[in-house]
Protein backbone atom coordinates (compact mmCIF):
# COMPACT_ATOMS: atom_id res chain seq x y z
CA UNK A 1 0.00 0.00 0.00
CA UNK A 2 1.61 3.23 -1.12
CA UNK A 3 0.09 6.59 -0.38
CA UNK A 4 0.87 9.55 -2.58
CA UNK A 5 0.72 13.21 -1.67
CA UNK A 6 -1.74 14.81 -3.99
CA UNK A 7 -1.50 18.46 -3.03
CA UNK A 8 1.63 20.27 -4.07
CA UNK A 9 3.50 22.96 -2.24
CA UNK A 10 1.39 25.78 -3.57
CA UNK A 11 -1.62 25.38 -1.29
CA UNK A 12 -0.73 24.52 2.22
CA UNK A 13 -3.46 26.29 4.15
CA UNK A 14 -4.47 23.35 6.30
CA UNK A 15 -1.01 22.18 7.20
CA UNK A 16 -0.59 23.85 10.63
CA UNK A 17 -4.01 22.81 11.91
CA UNK A 18 -3.80 19.28 10.52
CA UNK A 19 -0.31 18.85 11.92
CA UNK A 20 -1.39 19.94 15.38
CA UNK A 21 -4.31 17.49 15.37
CA UNK A 22 -2.10 14.66 14.12
CA UNK A 23 0.41 15.32 16.90
CA UNK A 24 -2.47 15.36 19.40
CA UNK A 25 -3.60 11.96 18.09
CA UNK A 26 -0.12 10.52 18.43
CA UNK A 27 0.18 11.95 21.94
CA UNK A 28 -3.03 10.38 23.20
CA UNK A 29 -2.05 7.07 21.60
CA UNK A 30 1.56 6.93 22.78
CA UNK A 31 2.01 9.21 25.78
CA UNK A 32 0.28 7.05 28.42
CA UNK A 33 2.37 4.00 27.52
CA UNK A 34 5.51 6.09 27.59
CA UNK A 35 4.59 7.51 30.97
CA UNK A 36 3.90 4.02 32.31
CA UNK A 37 7.31 2.94 31.09
CA UNK A 38 9.07 5.81 32.88
CA UNK A 39 7.01 5.26 36.04
CA UNK A 40 7.98 1.59 36.07
CA UNK A 41 11.62 2.66 36.41
CA UNK A 42 10.77 4.38 39.69
CA UNK A 43 12.21 2.26 42.52
CA UNK A 44 9.77 3.58 45.17
CA UNK A 45 6.40 2.06 46.05
CA UNK A 46 4.97 5.52 45.38
CA UNK A 47 4.17 5.89 41.71
CA UNK A 48 5.18 8.71 39.46
CA UNK A 49 8.25 10.06 37.78
CA UNK A 50 11.64 10.34 39.41
CA UNK A 51 14.86 11.93 38.25
CA UNK A 52 16.62 9.84 35.58
CA UNK A 53 19.56 9.38 37.93
CA UNK A 54 17.34 7.30 40.22
CA UNK A 55 16.02 5.00 37.47
CA UNK A 56 16.19 1.40 38.52
CA UNK A 57 15.06 -1.97 37.29
CA UNK A 58 13.97 -3.11 40.78
CA UNK A 59 10.45 -3.99 39.71
CA UNK A 60 11.66 -5.79 36.63
CA UNK A 61 13.85 -7.93 38.86
CA UNK A 62 10.89 -8.88 41.06
CA UNK A 63 9.08 -10.02 37.90
CA UNK A 64 11.41 -12.96 37.64
CA UNK A 65 10.08 -14.33 40.92
CA UNK A 66 6.42 -14.22 39.94
CA UNK A 67 5.57 -17.85 39.17
CA UNK A 68 1.94 -17.25 38.27
CA UNK A 69 2.95 -14.58 35.82
CA UNK A 70 5.35 -16.94 34.11
CA UNK A 71 2.79 -19.73 33.95
CA UNK A 72 0.32 -17.43 32.24
CA UNK A 73 3.04 -16.11 29.92
CA UNK A 74 3.91 -19.66 28.97
CA UNK A 75 0.26 -20.48 28.25
CA UNK A 76 -0.11 -17.37 26.12
CA UNK A 77 3.05 -18.05 24.14
CA UNK A 78 1.90 -21.60 23.39
CA UNK A 79 -1.48 -20.31 22.23
CA UNK A 80 0.04 -17.47 20.20
CA UNK A 81 2.54 -19.76 18.47
CA UNK A 82 -0.12 -22.33 17.62
CA UNK A 83 -2.41 -19.56 16.37
CA UNK A 84 0.27 -18.00 14.18
CA UNK A 85 1.39 -21.37 12.80
CA UNK A 86 -2.20 -22.11 11.71
CA UNK A 87 -3.34 -18.64 10.67
CA UNK A 88 -0.38 -17.80 8.42
CA UNK A 89 -0.68 -20.63 5.85
CA UNK A 90 -4.49 -20.63 5.96
CA UNK A 91 -4.44 -16.88 5.38
CA UNK A 92 -2.03 -17.20 2.47
CA UNK A 93 -4.10 -19.97 0.89
CA UNK A 94 -7.25 -17.88 1.22
CA UNK A 95 -5.51 -14.85 -0.31
CA UNK A 96 -4.33 -16.95 -3.25
CA UNK A 97 -7.84 -18.27 -3.73
CA UNK A 98 -9.25 -14.75 -3.51
CA UNK A 99 -7.62 -13.77 -6.79
CA UNK A 100 -9.37 -16.60 -8.58
CA UNK A 101 -12.74 -15.75 -7.10
CA UNK A 102 -15.15 -13.75 -9.16
CA UNK A 103 -18.56 -13.14 -7.69
CA UNK A 104 -17.58 -14.49 -4.27
CA UNK A 105 -15.07 -11.70 -3.64
CA UNK A 106 -17.48 -9.24 -2.11
CA UNK A 107 -19.01 -11.82 0.18
CA UNK A 108 -15.61 -13.13 1.19
CA UNK A 109 -14.38 -9.65 2.19
CA UNK A 110 -17.58 -9.07 4.12
CA UNK A 111 -17.00 -12.30 6.05
CA UNK A 112 -13.40 -11.26 6.79
CA UNK A 113 -14.55 -7.86 7.98
CA UNK A 114 -17.24 -9.36 10.18
CA UNK A 115 -14.84 -11.80 11.82
CA UNK A 116 -12.54 -8.86 12.52
CA UNK A 117 -15.18 -6.57 13.99
CA UNK A 118 -17.90 -8.63 15.70
CA UNK A 119 -17.34 -8.17 19.45
CA UNK A 120 -14.89 -10.72 20.86
CA UNK A 121 -17.11 -11.37 23.85
CA UNK A 122 -19.82 -12.67 21.52
CA UNK A 123 -17.43 -14.77 19.42
CA UNK A 124 -15.94 -16.23 22.59
CA UNK A 125 -19.32 -16.89 24.17
CA UNK A 126 -20.68 -18.61 21.05
CA UNK A 127 -17.59 -20.71 20.52
CA UNK A 128 -17.46 -21.82 24.15
CA UNK A 129 -21.12 -22.86 23.97
CA UNK A 130 -20.48 -24.92 20.83
CA UNK A 131 -17.38 -26.54 22.29
CA UNK A 132 -19.37 -27.41 25.38
CA UNK A 133 -22.04 -28.97 23.15
CA UNK A 134 -19.53 -31.22 21.37
CA UNK A 135 -17.84 -32.06 24.67
CA UNK A 136 -14.46 -30.36 24.23
CA UNK A 137 -13.18 -29.22 27.60
CA UNK A 138 -11.49 -25.81 27.69
CA UNK A 139 -7.71 -25.75 27.39
CA UNK A 140 -5.06 -23.95 25.36
CA UNK A 141 -6.55 -25.67 22.30
CA UNK A 142 -9.93 -23.97 22.67
CA UNK A 143 -8.26 -20.56 23.13
CA UNK A 144 -6.25 -21.25 19.99
CA UNK A 145 -9.44 -21.97 18.03
CA UNK A 146 -10.93 -18.67 19.18
CA UNK A 147 -7.75 -16.82 18.30
CA UNK A 148 -7.58 -18.49 14.90
CA UNK A 149 -10.94 -16.93 14.05
CA UNK A 150 -9.69 -13.57 15.40
CA UNK A 151 -6.33 -13.50 13.58
CA UNK A 152 -7.22 -15.13 10.26
CA UNK A 153 -8.77 -11.95 8.77
CA UNK A 154 -5.52 -10.12 9.46
CA UNK A 155 -3.28 -12.77 7.93
CA UNK A 156 -5.53 -12.85 4.85
CA UNK A 157 -5.33 -9.07 4.43
CA UNK A 158 -1.55 -9.01 4.93
CA UNK A 159 -1.19 -11.81 2.36
CA UNK A 160 -3.49 -9.99 -0.07
CA UNK A 161 -1.37 -6.85 0.24
CA UNK A 162 1.76 -8.93 -0.28
CA UNK A 163 0.30 -10.66 -3.34
CA UNK A 164 -0.86 -7.40 -4.89
CA UNK A 165 2.83 -6.49 -5.28
CA UNK A 166 3.41 -9.62 -7.37
CA UNK A 167 2.78 -8.71 -10.96
CA UNK A 168 0.80 -11.22 -12.91
CA UNK A 169 3.16 -10.69 -15.88
CA UNK A 170 5.95 -12.21 -13.83
CA UNK A 171 3.88 -15.30 -13.14
CA UNK A 172 2.77 -15.45 -16.75
CA UNK A 173 6.41 -15.31 -17.86
CA UNK A 174 7.27 -18.22 -15.59
CA UNK A 175 4.31 -20.17 -16.94
CA UNK A 176 5.32 -19.41 -20.54
CA UNK A 177 8.77 -20.73 -19.77
CA UNK A 178 7.16 -24.02 -18.86
CA UNK A 179 6.72 -23.83 -15.09
CA UNK A 180 3.60 -25.49 -13.71
CA UNK A 181 1.39 -23.52 -11.31
CA UNK A 182 3.08 -25.05 -8.26
CA UNK A 183 6.60 -24.49 -9.61
CA UNK A 184 5.71 -20.89 -10.51
CA UNK A 185 4.35 -20.37 -7.01
CA UNK A 186 7.39 -21.82 -5.25
CA UNK A 187 10.02 -20.18 -7.48
CA UNK A 188 8.42 -16.82 -8.22
CA UNK A 189 5.57 -15.91 -5.88
CA UNK A 190 6.92 -17.32 -2.63
CA UNK A 191 10.25 -15.44 -2.63
CA UNK A 192 8.39 -12.22 -3.47
CA UNK A 193 5.90 -12.55 -0.59
CA UNK A 194 8.30 -13.97 1.97
CA UNK A 195 8.32 -10.66 3.87
CA UNK A 196 4.56 -10.50 4.14
CA UNK A 197 4.46 -14.06 5.44
CA UNK A 198 6.79 -13.03 8.26
CA UNK A 199 4.59 -10.00 9.01
CA UNK A 200 1.53 -12.19 8.89
CA UNK A 201 3.04 -14.62 11.40
CA UNK A 202 4.19 -11.90 13.80
CA UNK A 203 0.88 -10.01 13.63
CA UNK A 204 -1.08 -13.19 14.36
CA UNK A 205 1.26 -13.97 17.25
CA UNK A 206 0.90 -10.50 18.80
CA UNK A 207 -2.86 -10.26 18.27
CA UNK A 208 -3.27 -13.60 20.01
CA UNK A 209 -0.83 -12.74 22.80
CA UNK A 210 -2.78 -9.60 23.69
CA UNK A 211 -6.32 -10.93 23.19
CA UNK A 212 -8.62 -10.76 26.20
CA UNK A 213 -12.36 -10.97 25.42
CA UNK A 214 -12.37 -14.37 23.65
CA UNK A 215 -9.85 -15.95 26.00
CA UNK A 216 -12.10 -14.97 28.91
CA UNK A 217 -14.62 -17.58 27.72
CA UNK A 218 -12.26 -20.16 26.29
CA UNK A 219 -9.44 -20.64 28.80
CA UNK A 220 -8.98 -23.84 30.73
CA UNK A 221 -7.53 -24.00 34.21
CA UNK A 222 -4.46 -21.94 33.30
CA UNK A 223 -5.09 -18.23 32.65
CA UNK A 224 -3.58 -16.55 29.65
CA UNK A 225 -1.40 -13.51 30.18
CA UNK A 226 -3.98 -10.74 29.57
CA UNK A 227 -6.44 -12.48 31.91
CA UNK A 228 -3.82 -12.76 34.64
CA UNK A 229 -2.76 -9.15 34.12
CA UNK A 230 -6.33 -7.89 34.20
CA UNK A 231 -6.83 -9.60 37.53
CA UNK A 232 -3.62 -8.14 38.92
CA UNK A 233 -4.52 -4.65 37.64
CA UNK A 234 -7.85 -4.73 39.39
CA UNK A 235 -6.59 -5.96 42.74
CA UNK A 236 -4.40 -3.11 43.94
CA UNK A 237 -1.84 -3.21 41.16
CA UNK A 238 1.67 -3.65 42.53
CA UNK A 239 4.53 -1.90 40.77
CA UNK A 240 5.49 -5.30 39.37
CA UNK A 241 2.52 -5.16 37.06
CA UNK A 242 3.65 -1.74 35.82
CA UNK A 243 7.02 -3.19 35.02
CA UNK A 244 5.50 -6.11 33.21
CA UNK A 245 3.06 -3.88 31.29
CA UNK A 246 6.00 -1.74 30.28
CA UNK A 247 7.93 -4.77 29.08
CA UNK A 248 4.96 -6.08 27.05
CA UNK A 249 4.44 -2.68 25.46
CA UNK A 250 8.09 -2.19 24.52
CA UNK A 251 8.46 -5.69 23.13
CA UNK A 252 5.31 -5.50 20.95
CA UNK A 253 6.18 -2.01 19.73
CA UNK A 254 9.74 -2.94 18.85
CA UNK A 255 8.73 -6.01 16.88
CA UNK A 256 5.99 -4.29 14.87
CA UNK A 257 8.13 -1.21 14.25
CA UNK A 258 10.89 -3.45 12.92
CA UNK A 259 8.47 -5.13 10.54
CA UNK A 260 7.10 -1.85 9.24
CA UNK A 261 10.59 -0.47 8.83
CA UNK A 262 11.74 -3.47 6.82
CA UNK A 263 8.58 -3.47 4.71
CA UNK A 264 9.01 0.24 3.95
CA UNK A 265 12.59 -0.29 2.86
CA UNK A 266 11.65 -3.14 0.60
CA UNK A 267 8.75 -1.21 -0.85
CA UNK A 268 11.00 1.81 -1.41
CA UNK A 269 13.31 -0.38 -3.45
CA UNK A 270 10.59 -1.88 -5.62
CA UNK A 271 8.43 1.20 -6.01
CA UNK A 272 9.32 2.17 -9.59
CA UNK A 273 8.61 -1.38 -10.68
CA UNK A 274 5.20 -1.76 -9.13
CA UNK A 275 3.81 1.61 -10.13
CA UNK A 276 5.51 2.69 -13.32
CA UNK A 277 2.52 4.71 -14.48
CA UNK A 278 2.26 6.93 -11.44
CA UNK A 279 5.90 7.85 -11.03
CA UNK A 280 6.75 10.41 -13.72
CA UNK A 281 5.54 13.94 -13.34
CA UNK A 282 4.77 13.83 -9.63
CA UNK A 283 7.36 15.61 -7.54
Amino acid sequence: MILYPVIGDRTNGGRPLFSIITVLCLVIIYAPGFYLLLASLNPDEQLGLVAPTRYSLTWYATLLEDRRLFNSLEESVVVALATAVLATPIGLAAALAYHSMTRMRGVFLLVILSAMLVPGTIEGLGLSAVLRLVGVSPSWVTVTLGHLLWTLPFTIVVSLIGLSAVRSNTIAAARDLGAGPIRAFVDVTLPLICGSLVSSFVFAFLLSLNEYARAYYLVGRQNTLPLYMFGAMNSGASPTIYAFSGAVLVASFAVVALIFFRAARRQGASQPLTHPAREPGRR
Partner: protein
Amino acid sequence: MPDKGGGRWRRGAFFLALPSFVVFIGLGFVPLALVATWSLWSFDPDTYWIKPVWSLASYAALLNSGRAAVLLQTAGLAALTATVCTLLAVPAASLIGLLSGPRRAALLVALFTIPFFTSGLVRAFAWRLVLGREGIINKALIGLGVVDAPVEWLLFSAFAVVLGMVAAHLPLAIVPIALAFARIESSVIRASQDLGAGFWTTFSSIVLPLIMPGVLAGFLFVFVVAIGASMEIQLLGGAGASSIAIMINDVMRVVNFPLAFAIATAVSVVSILVIIVADRALKLSRFFEDRSA
Protein backbone atom coordinates in the same frame (compact mmCIF):
# COMPACT_ATOMS: atom_id res chain seq x y z
CA MET B 1 -2.49 -13.87 -9.73
CA PRO B 2 -3.74 -14.48 -13.20
CA ASP B 3 -7.05 -16.14 -13.67
CA LYS B 4 -6.04 -18.45 -16.45
CA GLY B 5 -6.49 -22.11 -17.00
CA GLY B 6 -10.23 -22.16 -16.43
CA GLY B 7 -11.72 -25.01 -14.45
CA ARG B 8 -8.51 -26.44 -13.06
CA TRP B 9 -7.62 -23.14 -11.44
CA ARG B 10 -11.13 -22.82 -10.07
CA ARG B 11 -10.97 -26.18 -8.40
CA GLY B 12 -7.52 -25.40 -7.02
CA ALA B 13 -8.84 -22.12 -5.69
CA PHE B 14 -11.66 -23.91 -3.94
CA PHE B 15 -9.24 -26.17 -2.10
CA LEU B 16 -7.05 -23.20 -1.21
CA ALA B 17 -10.03 -21.37 0.24
CA LEU B 18 -11.40 -24.41 2.04
CA PRO B 19 -9.44 -24.14 5.33
CA SER B 20 -10.48 -20.51 5.78
CA PHE B 21 -14.12 -21.41 5.00
CA VAL B 22 -13.94 -24.08 7.68
CA VAL B 23 -12.64 -21.54 10.19
CA PHE B 24 -15.12 -18.80 9.34
CA ILE B 25 -18.12 -21.10 9.13
CA GLY B 26 -17.22 -23.63 11.82
CA LEU B 27 -15.77 -21.28 14.42
CA GLY B 28 -17.65 -18.11 13.50
CA PHE B 29 -20.97 -18.64 11.79
CA VAL B 30 -22.11 -21.90 13.39
CA PRO B 31 -21.57 -20.62 16.96
CA LEU B 32 -23.48 -17.42 16.14
CA ALA B 33 -26.34 -19.38 14.59
CA LEU B 34 -26.50 -21.71 17.59
CA VAL B 35 -26.44 -18.80 20.00
CA ALA B 36 -29.30 -17.22 18.07
CA THR B 37 -31.28 -20.47 18.26
CA TRP B 38 -30.56 -21.05 21.92
CA SER B 39 -31.59 -17.52 22.77
CA LEU B 40 -35.13 -18.74 22.06
CA TRP B 41 -34.85 -21.73 24.41
CA SER B 42 -35.44 -21.77 28.15
CA PHE B 43 -33.23 -22.29 31.15
CA ASP B 44 -33.36 -25.78 32.63
CA PRO B 45 -32.80 -25.69 36.40
CA ASP B 46 -32.26 -29.47 36.51
CA THR B 47 -29.22 -29.56 34.27
CA TYR B 48 -28.10 -25.97 34.74
CA TRP B 49 -28.15 -25.63 30.97
CA ILE B 50 -30.93 -24.92 28.48
CA LYS B 51 -33.79 -27.00 27.18
CA PRO B 52 -35.62 -26.79 23.86
CA VAL B 53 -38.73 -25.07 25.16
CA TRP B 54 -39.30 -22.16 22.82
CA SER B 55 -39.81 -18.83 24.46
CA LEU B 56 -39.36 -15.14 23.78
CA ALA B 57 -38.89 -14.41 27.48
CA SER B 58 -35.20 -13.55 27.07
CA TYR B 59 -35.99 -10.90 24.50
CA ALA B 60 -38.63 -9.48 26.80
CA ALA B 61 -36.04 -9.40 29.59
CA LEU B 62 -33.75 -7.52 27.23
CA LEU B 63 -36.18 -4.62 27.30
CA ASN B 64 -36.27 -4.59 31.09
CA SER B 65 -35.33 -1.08 32.13
CA GLY B 66 -31.93 -1.83 33.66
CA ARG B 67 -30.76 -3.84 30.67
CA ALA B 68 -32.20 -1.47 28.09
CA ALA B 69 -30.35 1.33 29.86
CA VAL B 70 -27.03 -0.50 29.48
CA LEU B 71 -27.76 -1.16 25.81
CA LEU B 72 -28.52 2.50 25.17
CA GLN B 73 -25.60 3.67 27.28
CA THR B 74 -23.18 1.45 25.35
CA ALA B 75 -24.60 2.60 22.02
CA GLY B 76 -24.27 6.22 23.14
CA LEU B 77 -20.69 5.72 24.30
CA ALA B 78 -19.85 3.97 21.02
CA ALA B 79 -21.42 6.78 18.99
CA LEU B 80 -19.54 9.42 20.98
CA THR B 81 -16.25 7.52 20.64
CA ALA B 82 -16.80 7.10 16.91
CA THR B 83 -17.63 10.79 16.48
CA VAL B 84 -14.54 12.01 18.34
CA CYS B 85 -12.34 9.48 16.52
CA THR B 86 -13.70 10.60 13.16
CA LEU B 87 -13.21 14.29 13.94
CA LEU B 88 -9.57 13.59 14.81
CA ALA B 89 -9.04 11.05 12.04
CA VAL B 90 -10.06 13.28 9.11
CA PRO B 91 -7.28 15.85 9.68
CA ALA B 92 -4.74 13.16 10.62
CA ALA B 93 -5.51 11.06 7.55
CA SER B 94 -5.52 14.21 5.40
CA LEU B 95 -2.04 15.07 6.60
CA ILE B 96 -1.01 11.58 5.50
CA GLY B 97 -2.85 11.53 2.20
CA LEU B 98 -2.55 15.14 1.07
CA LEU B 99 0.32 16.89 2.73
CA SER B 100 3.08 14.34 3.28
CA GLY B 101 5.75 12.94 1.03
CA PRO B 102 5.73 9.16 0.53
CA ARG B 103 8.31 8.65 3.28
CA ARG B 104 6.48 10.58 5.97
CA ALA B 105 3.13 9.16 4.87
CA ALA B 106 4.50 5.65 5.36
CA LEU B 107 5.93 6.59 8.76
CA LEU B 108 2.62 8.05 9.94
CA VAL B 109 0.64 5.07 8.68
CA ALA B 110 3.05 2.83 10.59
CA LEU B 111 2.73 4.92 13.77
CA PHE B 112 -1.05 4.77 13.58
CA THR B 113 -1.13 1.03 12.86
CA ILE B 114 1.44 -0.20 15.38
CA PRO B 115 -0.76 0.34 18.48
CA PHE B 116 -3.25 -2.11 17.05
CA PHE B 117 -0.77 -4.91 17.67
CA THR B 118 0.19 -3.85 21.18
CA SER B 119 -1.76 -4.73 24.29
CA GLY B 120 -5.02 -2.79 24.51
CA LEU B 121 -5.19 -3.85 28.14
CA VAL B 122 -1.86 -2.21 28.98
CA ARG B 123 -2.72 0.92 27.02
CA ALA B 124 -6.02 1.32 28.89
CA PHE B 125 -4.28 0.63 32.18
CA ALA B 126 -1.64 3.27 31.44
CA TRP B 127 -4.35 5.94 31.49
CA ARG B 128 -4.88 5.12 35.15
CA LEU B 129 -1.40 6.33 35.94
CA VAL B 130 -1.84 9.45 33.87
CA LEU B 131 -5.26 10.43 35.16
CA GLY B 132 -5.13 9.22 38.77
CA ARG B 133 -4.98 11.42 41.87
CA GLU B 134 -1.22 10.97 41.92
CA GLY B 135 -1.05 11.06 38.13
CA ILE B 136 0.98 13.40 36.03
CA ILE B 137 -1.97 15.59 35.02
CA ASN B 138 -3.11 16.24 38.58
CA LYS B 139 0.47 16.85 39.71
CA ALA B 140 0.98 19.31 36.88
CA LEU B 141 -2.31 21.11 37.61
CA ILE B 142 -1.43 21.43 41.30
CA GLY B 143 2.14 22.39 40.51
CA LEU B 144 0.95 25.17 38.22
CA GLY B 145 -1.46 26.36 40.88
CA VAL B 146 -4.52 25.79 38.67
CA VAL B 147 -6.21 23.68 41.35
CA ASP B 148 -5.53 23.11 45.04
CA ALA B 149 -6.68 19.51 45.35
CA PRO B 150 -6.48 16.66 42.77
CA VAL B 151 -9.26 16.78 40.18
CA GLU B 152 -11.42 13.76 40.98
CA TRP B 153 -13.36 13.41 37.74
CA LEU B 154 -10.27 12.69 35.67
CA LEU B 155 -10.28 8.99 36.51
CA PHE B 156 -13.08 6.46 37.11
CA SER B 157 -15.42 8.68 35.17
CA ALA B 158 -17.15 8.96 31.81
CA PHE B 159 -14.37 11.34 30.79
CA ALA B 160 -11.67 8.72 31.40
CA VAL B 161 -13.67 6.06 29.54
CA VAL B 162 -14.17 8.23 26.46
CA LEU B 163 -10.51 9.27 26.43
CA GLY B 164 -9.34 5.67 26.76
CA MET B 165 -11.78 4.49 24.09
CA VAL B 166 -10.75 7.22 21.64
CA ALA B 167 -7.05 6.48 22.14
CA ALA B 168 -7.71 2.78 21.65
CA HIS B 169 -9.83 3.07 18.51
CA LEU B 170 -8.34 6.03 16.62
CA PRO B 171 -6.27 3.86 14.26
CA LEU B 172 -9.44 2.10 13.15
CA ALA B 173 -10.87 5.43 11.95
CA ILE B 174 -7.67 6.67 10.32
CA VAL B 175 -6.86 3.63 8.18
CA PRO B 176 -10.03 3.61 5.99
CA ILE B 177 -9.71 7.35 5.35
CA ALA B 178 -6.06 6.93 4.39
CA LEU B 179 -7.18 4.15 2.00
CA ALA B 180 -9.77 6.49 0.49
CA PHE B 181 -7.02 9.07 -0.13
CA ALA B 182 -4.94 6.50 -1.97
CA ARG B 183 -7.75 6.26 -4.53
CA ILE B 184 -7.95 9.98 -5.32
CA GLU B 185 -6.60 10.95 -8.74
CA SER B 186 -4.10 13.74 -8.16
CA SER B 187 -5.15 15.41 -11.44
CA VAL B 188 -8.53 16.28 -9.91
CA ILE B 189 -6.87 18.24 -7.16
CA ARG B 190 -4.38 19.85 -9.49
CA ALA B 191 -7.24 20.95 -11.70
CA SER B 192 -8.97 22.53 -8.73
CA GLN B 193 -5.80 24.36 -7.81
CA ASP B 194 -5.16 25.48 -11.38
CA LEU B 195 -8.63 26.97 -11.42
CA GLY B 196 -7.59 29.11 -8.45
CA ALA B 197 -9.17 27.32 -5.51
CA GLY B 198 -7.33 27.70 -2.21
CA PHE B 199 -6.66 24.90 0.23
CA TRP B 200 -9.92 25.03 2.14
CA THR B 201 -12.07 25.35 -0.98
CA THR B 202 -10.30 22.38 -2.56
CA PHE B 203 -10.53 20.46 0.69
CA SER B 204 -14.21 21.02 1.31
CA SER B 205 -15.53 20.81 -2.25
CA ILE B 206 -13.20 18.22 -3.83
CA VAL B 207 -11.36 16.21 -1.20
CA LEU B 208 -14.04 15.77 1.44
CA PRO B 209 -16.67 14.30 -0.91
CA LEU B 210 -14.07 11.93 -2.33
CA ILE B 211 -12.96 10.61 1.08
CA MET B 212 -16.50 10.48 2.49
CA PRO B 213 -16.83 6.69 1.99
CA GLY B 214 -13.66 6.21 4.05
CA VAL B 215 -14.92 8.61 6.72
CA LEU B 216 -18.22 6.74 6.97
CA ALA B 217 -16.49 3.36 7.05
CA GLY B 218 -14.09 4.56 9.75
CA PHE B 219 -16.96 5.89 11.86
CA LEU B 220 -18.86 2.61 11.58
CA PHE B 221 -15.77 0.45 12.27
CA VAL B 222 -15.09 2.34 15.48
CA PHE B 223 -18.77 2.21 16.42
CA VAL B 224 -19.00 -1.56 16.03
CA VAL B 225 -15.77 -2.28 17.88
CA ALA B 226 -16.66 0.18 20.65
CA ILE B 227 -19.99 -1.60 21.14
CA GLY B 228 -18.02 -4.65 22.24
CA ALA B 229 -15.61 -2.79 24.54
CA SER B 230 -15.16 -3.98 28.10
CA MET B 231 -11.56 -3.44 29.25
CA GLU B 232 -11.55 0.35 28.95
CA ILE B 233 -14.81 0.60 30.86
CA GLN B 234 -13.77 -1.81 33.61
CA LEU B 235 -10.37 -0.18 34.08
CA LEU B 236 -11.29 3.48 33.67
CA GLY B 237 -15.00 3.74 34.47
CA GLY B 238 -16.48 4.31 37.90
CA ALA B 239 -17.77 1.57 40.18
CA GLY B 240 -21.15 1.11 38.48
CA ALA B 241 -19.92 1.52 34.90
CA SER B 242 -21.21 -1.16 32.58
CA SER B 243 -21.33 -2.03 28.91
CA ILE B 244 -22.96 -4.69 26.79
CA ALA B 245 -19.92 -6.97 26.95
CA ILE B 246 -19.68 -6.60 30.75
CA MET B 247 -23.41 -7.26 31.02
CA ILE B 248 -23.06 -10.46 28.97
CA ASN B 249 -20.24 -11.63 31.24
CA ASP B 250 -22.35 -10.86 34.33
CA VAL B 251 -25.43 -12.62 32.98
CA MET B 252 -23.31 -15.67 32.11
CA ARG B 253 -21.91 -15.70 35.64
CA VAL B 254 -25.42 -16.04 37.05
CA VAL B 255 -26.00 -18.79 34.45
CA ASN B 256 -28.92 -17.06 32.76
CA PHE B 257 -27.82 -18.53 29.43
CA PRO B 258 -30.85 -17.69 27.28
CA LEU B 259 -30.62 -14.03 28.27
CA ALA B 260 -26.88 -13.87 27.54
CA PHE B 261 -27.53 -15.49 24.18
CA ALA B 262 -30.35 -13.05 23.42
CA ILE B 263 -28.12 -10.04 24.12
CA ALA B 264 -25.34 -11.59 22.03
CA THR B 265 -27.74 -12.28 19.16
CA ALA B 266 -29.20 -8.77 19.16
CA VAL B 267 -25.73 -7.21 19.23
CA SER B 268 -24.30 -9.42 16.51
CA VAL B 269 -27.25 -8.76 14.21
CA VAL B 270 -26.81 -5.01 14.67
CA SER B 271 -23.02 -5.30 14.28
CA ILE B 272 -23.24 -7.25 11.06
CA LEU B 273 -25.78 -4.84 9.58
CA VAL B 274 -23.47 -1.93 10.41
CA ILE B 275 -20.51 -3.79 8.92
CA ILE B 276 -22.47 -4.41 5.70
CA VAL B 277 -23.17 -0.67 5.40
CA ALA B 278 -19.49 0.16 6.05
CA ASP B 279 -18.36 -2.41 3.52
CA ARG B 280 -20.73 -1.01 0.90
CA ALA B 281 -19.38 2.48 1.54
CA LEU B 282 -15.71 1.61 1.42
CA LYS B 283 -15.97 -0.92 -1.45
CA LEU B 284 -13.10 -2.83 0.05
CA SER B 285 -12.97 -5.28 -2.83
CA ARG B 286 -11.48 -2.57 -5.06
CA PHE B 287 -8.28 -2.48 -3.05
CA PHE B 288 -7.08 -5.93 -3.97
CA GLU B 289 -7.72 -5.82 -7.70
CA ASP B 290 -5.05 -7.21 -9.96
CA ARG B 291 -3.58 -3.81 -10.78
CA SER B 292 -1.14 -4.78 -13.50
CA ALA B 293 -3.64 -6.84 -15.49
